[in-house]
């Protein structure tokens, strides 16, 4: 996308025009597919050129699959794969006689895939219309047209007093407005050394300082709620069960960096998130914690809630900003970083929702108390979640430094039904695979990195003895190729070739595959193409015999 285009969008945004993406999403919701008439209407309403609108309409999954009267979306995420190896997908396809992305000729029913619905605690999951059903018997219920609403996951904290599961009450902002200048709050957050919880682990305080120091007529806070990692439902929990805590973190970020407006982008795969966040925004207004001159402090802050349209890469910060602007969710080269030139070309802080949920505690209790949450390890606490193959799946707040064995066996109760844990993928599809033999590693950035793994966003997907590792490689590479934004050449073509290597009838040429992995790791523009080799490297190291190598 060109800078001219971003400038065009900035000018129309000032007029409070809807984005092209919002208009196109509404068209799909209204009549099931996008016509040229819709595209022209989106261009007229948003100020975006028609060609650019066409580009948007061809990018997002939600805009591509035509919808019938009944629209059935099957989760193809990694937790669902770990549970049934794709049986739900195959079963639904066969029963309806449709491929994913197809609509029946009479328009009565359509099938699409979705990654992921965040019901990893009770996989496999399917969304029939607006209802998400999951777990044993789901195929039969879909076929009988009698889906039932799946239960939400349990959540708890191992800390004496939960920090991230404590309902947000705006006490952190209240204290900060009284006791902190923006500068001293920023110092406190830097002191607390909050590492980003979205995957990259970048210190939040540094991002804030860069944005604060960047000149601009306005600054923005953008909360990244595009939790695309299959197998993760942490942000889903925060946005739906504790949204005030995230909003409070955004307001604190705004106070510290001098921003008066925040945006939170959630996912269309989580139909309950946007309403929950919007309700929390209204509640905060009613309580006088958002809006003009909050608590008579002179600080004003407001928040807009937005929803994506089906793209994993939109979780990358530059792609996220493009999506907020209603453009194609493709990655941009950095520098310039968003802190310098972000949303509408202005200084912007992009933080993961969980990162922001840490801030109210720091504002209230200070950096030392924050460090004490994980003695001798990365400061603060972390939410993790487990997939359905564990005995007690759910969201847990834990301390960094806890061993993976303790998390998996004591907290989550080990594999259910006496199954044997074969391997884990912690932190999303771009993370290495941890074989069960290395379960004594501590859950923290450095120890996991030493084993080619990562904290990532904290979703923990366990695979039992039924998962074949060649199938897992194919599953991950299919996801990777499908979700590549198409901007950088290594990812755009390389992930397709990697997936083809694992779908062909001939053995995988290991040397050739490793050359390809190097091109992806070294060459890719963002962590998508750069990260997918990590699980492949782990599989090559720990499970070479299962991969069908030559």
């Amino acid at each position: 996308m060109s800078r001219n285009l971003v400038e065009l969008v900035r000018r129309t945004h000032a007029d409070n025009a809807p984005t092209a993406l919002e208009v196109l999403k509404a068209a799909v919701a209204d009549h099931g597919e996008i016509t040229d008439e819709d595209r022209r209407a989106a261009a007229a309403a948003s100020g975006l050129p028609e060609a650019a609108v066409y580009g948007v309409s061809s990018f997002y999954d939600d805009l591509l699959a035509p919808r019938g009267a009944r629209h059935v979306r099957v989760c193809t995420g990694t937790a669902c794969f770990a549970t049934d190896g794709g049986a739900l997908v195959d079963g639904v396809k066969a029963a309806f006689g449709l491929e994913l992305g197809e609509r029946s000729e009479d328009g009565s029913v359509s099938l699409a895939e979705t990654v992921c619905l965040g019901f990893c605690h009770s996989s496999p999951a399917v969304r029939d219309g607006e209802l998400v059903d999951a777990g044993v018997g789901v195929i039969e219920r879909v076929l009988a047209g009698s889906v039932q609403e799946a239960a939400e996951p349990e959540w708890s904290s191992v800390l004496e007093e939960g920090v991230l599961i404590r309902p947000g009450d705006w006490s952190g902002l209240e204290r900060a407005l009284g006791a902190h200048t923006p500068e001293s709050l920023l110092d406190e957050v830097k002191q607390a050394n909050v590492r980003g919880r979205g995957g990259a682990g970048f210190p939040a305080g540094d991002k804030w300082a860069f944005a604060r120091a960047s000149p601009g007529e306005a600054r923005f806070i953008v909360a990244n709620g595009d939790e695309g990692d299959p197998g993760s439902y942490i942000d889903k929990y925060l946005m739906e069960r504790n949204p005030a805590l995230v909003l409070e973190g955004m307001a604190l970020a705004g106070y510290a960096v001098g921003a008066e407006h925040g945006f939170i982008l959630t996912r269309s795969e989580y139909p309950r998130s946007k309403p929950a966040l919007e309700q929390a925004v209204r509640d905060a207004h009613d309580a006088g914690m958002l809006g003009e001159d909050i608590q008579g402090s002179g600080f004003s802050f407001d928040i807009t809630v937005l929803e994506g349209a089906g793209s994993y890469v939109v979780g990358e910060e530059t792609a996220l900003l493009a999506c907020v602007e209603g453009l194609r969710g493709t990655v941009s080269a950095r520098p310039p970083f968003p802190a310098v030139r972000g949303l509408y070309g202005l200084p912007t802080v992009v933080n993961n929702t969980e990162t922001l949920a840490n801030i109210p505690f720091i504002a209230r209790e200070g950096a030392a108390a924050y460090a004490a949450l994980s003695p001798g390890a990365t400061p603060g606490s972390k939410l993790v979640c487990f997939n359905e193959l564990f005995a007690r799946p759910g969201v847990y707040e834990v301390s960094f430094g806890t061993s993976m064995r303790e998390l998996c066996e004591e907290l989550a109760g080990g594999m259910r039904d006496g199954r044997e844990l074969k391997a884990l993928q912690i932190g999303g599809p771009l993370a290495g695979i941890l074989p069960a033999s290395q379960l004594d590693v501590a859950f923290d950035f450095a120890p996991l990195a030493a084993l080619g793994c990562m904290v990532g966003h904290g979703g923990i997907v366990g695979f039992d003895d039924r998962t074949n590792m060649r199938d897992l490689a194919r599953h991950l590479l299919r996801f990777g190729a499908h979700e590549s934004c198409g901007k950088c050449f290594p990812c755009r073509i390389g992930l397709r070739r990697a997936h083809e290597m694992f779908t062909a009838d001939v053995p995988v040429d290991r040397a050739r595959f490793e050359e390809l992995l190097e091109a992806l790791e070294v060459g890719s523009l963002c962590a998508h193409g750069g990260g997918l080799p990590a699980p492949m490297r782990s599989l090559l190291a720990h499970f070479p015999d299962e991969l069908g190598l030559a």
Partner: protein
Amino acid sequence: MLVTIDGHELEVEPETTLLSAIRAAGGNVPTLCFDERQAAFGACRVCLVGVEGARGPLPACTTPCRDGMVIDTHDETSRRVATAIVELVLSELPEPPAPHTELAEVARSLNVGVPRWPGATHAVAHDTRHPYLAFQHELCISCGRCVRACDEVQGAFALTATGRGFTANITAGLDAGFRDSTCVSCGACADTCPTDAITEITLLPL
């Protein structure tokens, strides 16, 4: 600020990219998505170079110089990866690029011949309804130069990137061809295209 390029020192202005510095020093690294008339895009990743102290190769087109940087345009990993990427690019085309194109030239410079990748290639699709411009979509490598030429130079906004992943491509207007778009026939897209996916044609002998 002072940078060292392949052993030679060069004084550069702040904000200078590695690629500008390398070219100013008389050196070169191959590029596919770069056009000096446009903002750098950072998509092709063929301009990777080695930089002392960096964790790995860096794209020369989007990386700004820092004082004291030591740049190696012959860095082995960079050239190996660039070569692998160009081979991938050739593998997405159903036929080799014409010898006079920039893509063919870059492939020759890296000694990339017939790509060793079997697998999908781009679907053949032609727009030949415009009197002066023709689009062969199967030759498009999504470098985005035509889109930037149209947006940044001409301000016509007639072109867009489409699709994503391997199916990414470029199209005009609402995908109905140049004639039904806001194209002003300036030819800037054809001028910058490195593969002849977009070419200038004439209906009449002039």
